[in-house]
């Protein structure tokens, strides 16, 4: 599957411009991580790719065909997990997935693979069968999200995490060629997060997966491509290694006390609890900007981690992590 986004802009009826002349090329197999702060345009991009919106200008091509014409075939090959969604509470998990499978036309269309049973890909039955494929697909999806015990439970009785897993299961139904997952691991416990991370990684072996998340760990270990967005523009598109490389020499640690002793700088401010949210109050050090990304209380004082175009003398250079690199990228845009 190949998606080509050409010079796409999107302005909402209220005048808010969510995307600005955005161009992007995505091709399967790939697991693409989509990063960016709130309001960056990630959700708008995903809505455009799921044909929930049409761009104000520009073109989105699906396998070379403009999206409006390719909408039906896109939806037939799309698994979509939005950030905010609802379920039919009166149905059981199995009934709900059967419902969604039917809407997707899985019973008649058949599938090419199953996310959780790669071993069955090459069997004669799974390649050619339409009979009972529906049921099999539903069971596969339930198994994939580890909801076998809740398959017969009414959705209204599920916990938040189980509902989220049900949502993931519906996206996985029929092994779609294109998976869009918006914050899929929200509400899941760490063990499940790791499990799903691996699941998405496996799924991306032969298809295109677009994963939007605030949790850097989720993308760090599994994505082979990262897209960083802010203010409706793409700041970076490449591999995680390339993003990390771009931050090399721009990450450092220092003692807060040492920084305060530096008279050229005002008192550093606390960062937010969200690790991905860089503080908007930069620390100015001799005409340069230092963005604190972490602040740890230790027995010897407060140890700070920061990114900057040029590190101040009191900061010791550190090997950047993906989170550092992401924050460095965003901080540069904030500074500019």
């Amino acid at each position, binding site marked *: 599957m190949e998606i080509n986004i050409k010079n796409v802009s999107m302005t*909402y*009826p209220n005048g808010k411009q969510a995307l600005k002349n955005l161009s992007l090329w995505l091709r399967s197999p790939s697991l693409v991580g989509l990063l960016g702060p709130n309001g960056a345009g990630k959700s708008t991009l995903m*809505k455009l790719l*799921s*044909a*929930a*919106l*049409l761009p104000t200008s520009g073109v989105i091509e699906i396998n070379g065909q403009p999206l*409006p014409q390719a*909408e*039906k075939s896109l*939806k037939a090959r*799309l698994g*979509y997990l*939005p950030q*905010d*969604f*609802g*379920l*039919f*509470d*009166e*149905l059981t998990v199995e*009934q709900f997935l*059967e*419902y*969604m499978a*039917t*809407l*997707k*036309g899985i*019973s*008649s*269309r058949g599938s090419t693979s199953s996310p959780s049973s790669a071993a069955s890909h090459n*069997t*004669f*039955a799974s390649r*050619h*069968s*339409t*009979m*009972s*494929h*529906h*049921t099999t697909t539903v069971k596969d999806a339930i198994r994939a999200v580890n909801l076998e015990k809740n398959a017969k439970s009414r959705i209204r009785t599920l916990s938040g995490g189980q509902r989220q897993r049900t*949502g993931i299961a*519906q996206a996985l139904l029929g092994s779609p060629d294109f998976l869009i997952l918006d914050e899929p691991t929200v509400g899941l416990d760490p063990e499940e997060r790791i499990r799903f991370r691996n699941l998405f990684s496996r799924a991306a072996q032969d298809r295109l997966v677009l994963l939007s998340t605030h949790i850097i760990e989720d993308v760090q270990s599994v994505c082979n491509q990262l897209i960083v967005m802010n203010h409706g523009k793409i700041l970076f598109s490449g591999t995680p290694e390339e993003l990390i490389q771009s931050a090399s020499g721009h990450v450092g640690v220092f003692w807060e006390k040492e920084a305060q002793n530096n008279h050229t700088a005002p008192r550093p401010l606390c960062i937010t609890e969200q690790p991905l949210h860089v503080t908007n109050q930069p620390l100015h050090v001799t005409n340069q900007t230092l963005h604190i990304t972490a602040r740890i209380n230790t027995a010897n004082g407060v140890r700070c981690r920061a990114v900057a175009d040029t590190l101040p003398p009191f900061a010791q250079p550190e090997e950047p992590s993906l989170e550092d690199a992401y924050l460095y990228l965003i901080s540069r845009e904030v500074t500019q």
Partner: protein
Amino acid sequence: MKSVRLLTLKILPPNRRHVFRDAPCARQTFADWWYTRPPGACRFTLKVPPPNRRHAFRDAPCARQTFMGRWNACPPGACRFTLELRRLLQSPLTWLTIFLTLLSPLAGLYIYQPASASTMHTMYLANPALAGGAAGGILFALLTVYELDRAGRSRMDVLVDAAVSPLTMALVRLLALAGAAILTLGAVMALWLPITAKLIGSVFHMEDYLLAYVIFMGLALPLSILAAASAFQFTRRADLSLAIFAAFAGLSLTVWSDRWQLCWLNPCVWALSDDFSNLRIFRSAAWMRMTWLGALTGIWILSWLSIRQYGKGLLGSLSQSLARNARLLYRPAAAFLLLVCSGTAFAAQPFVDQSNPDQTVMTFLEIPFLEGVSFLHRSVFVCPDTAAGTVAGKAIFQLQNHSGQTQTLAFGINPGYKISSVQANGRDASFSVSDDQEYNESLLQVTIPPAEDIELSIEYGGFPQEDSSMSAMQGRLEISDEYLCLENSVLSPRLMNVPPVNVPLKNVSAKDVPEAEYVPYPTTIEITLPAHMTVIPFSPSQPEKLAENTDGTITWRYEDSGTGGILYAGDYLRQDIEAGGLTIQLYYGRRHQAVMEAAGAAQAVKAVVDYCTEHYGPLSFGADGTLKLIQSRVSGGGYARNGASLLDEVDFTAANLDDAGKGTVPGEVMIHELVHQWWGLANMFDPASANDAWSAEGLTVYTTYRIVKELYGEDSSSSYARENYVKKWLQAVDDYQKNFYVRNPRYLAALPQKEQLNISNSLSYVRRYNEMPLKILKAEQLVGGEEAMDAILCDLFNRELDYTYPYLTYSDFLDACGLTEEELNLKKN
């Protein structure tokens, strides 16, 4: 099955055997393979039954799975509909809706009774079905709005829209709601069938039951669903949608309730017959339903195209829907076509005419007779199509034109008929049909040549229309193989401006000629009907069988007189009763046989005729010593003419006949109509005084009261007669005198003409049916009691007639009583 398995094992390629061997359900996998096998994979196709045959599943350990597998391979649209319907049926609100709809016919038995007639089918079928339709429609509209709103409210639409187009999903939801409505209707019909059959009793008719529930109730549900869904799809707001639907339904239930084409939720049904068919009212209601179905489907398609997509508003979504694909232009085209079709169906409805609503206008009666043209004979050949409810006929008039000039004849024809041919002496004659309609007739004008002897042939036919003033009470012109009634211009064109034989009057019109002098319009009528139908001319004539046709029909012939004529036919039984020196031929529907026999109707008829003959004298209209007493299909009353009297079936219903409070006499309308044989045939009262309180009804109602009082016995029934006659007259007259428009006639004059007419007709009815009987009762007291009044009435009935003015006037009555008008004044001081 054994051979199948053996053969399967034989031909399988080695690399595929493990698939079947290891599969949890070997036959299922085999079936998979069967449907996807490569061409030429096997050569035993003819020998091995395909696995979708029933026996292939019968012995399979996982037969159900295999069947479900087949089911799941259904087309996507059908699968989506099935799944959505199943999902809908999982919702508690759906079940609440279904449960309440199941109970809703109960409202028709106790609360909501729009059909006013008292036949068993009206009370226990029409009203429950109408109530079920109104309540069920509203309930399903609420369910529709809830379900459509719910997807967005619960954010479920985000998932669904990513899987399938919102338009597709809206269609699937609509069909699922319609499917639920159909299932509900089936359940309602199954539940209410035994109840209705028990309530209606021996006259219960299954065909009527099915049609009533499907048309009166069933079609209300999809209409409501379409209306509610359209409102929601346009507005995307549940509250606004409910308000719009409430206004739309409210209009139907109130302002439009007596406008048969507009009351989409509650069809204008006033009666269903027990004894005869009801096809005409079913056709009419179905026409209205289909008109609205077309209109609402068209509106729904437009709203469907406006479903919000791609983050756009109403117009943006609509334009996007239209602009995406030129091939999809058929969608708005279909909506437009449906709206045009329904508009056409509304404007060109075939059931009701466009008669002048002002019933005081009688211009057709004022057309002057032609000079030099006289009537010799009329022959009518009628062939009703009892399946289609239509009539085809040919009328041949033998005339003489002494004028030596072309003349223009005027006929009244039913507005529903088309004239296909008019020939005078074998040549086409020019004719025109005017758009002016009066009293359910159009004016047909035919020009005849100046020849002395004229044979005028008119071929006509079509679906007869009913009078627009009675549009809320349709069904009178029922034509089926169970019943038909062809009256005057429905039977054949009615000649209006040629005097009867031997009455070549100058400067007079039809209105000026007493009915007795119309007798010389000799007529022969031939009618072809299914063999089981009994032909009953509404005249002294007795039909004779002319031919038994090969198609199972019989052609009948009878002689008649007059320019019109009335003919009844149907599945009738006849009972001859000797009473009052006459042979009464009592005709009633075969369905009603058990009820009539149980009620002893024949004895009751005998008692009434004997009473009237004894008190007032023998009937002067009993033709050849016979009187036909014909039970008609429910018609809201009856009428009488020389040799025949009509009785509405309403008075013969089991409920009415079993009413212990009324004694053993089967219904007072029967008595009333019989009394018209003594008081009230057209030549007794001047028909010109349309608004006069003095008419045939005053004396007839008074006499009916007297008969009821006497027949029911002095102790019990005198109170019954007082309660049901005198007190009702007093109440009605009191209401009349207090009526705002009676006290302030200038405000009546300020109303729109139609309203004026409605009020005037209503007030006129009170004066004739209530005020005048009360005045006669007052006269009875003033002249010395019942015996004195009986003597006066007997003298009036047997008085010497002045044939130049044979009418019995109010002055005649006052003079006979020796009273003045002021003495009978009822106004309170």
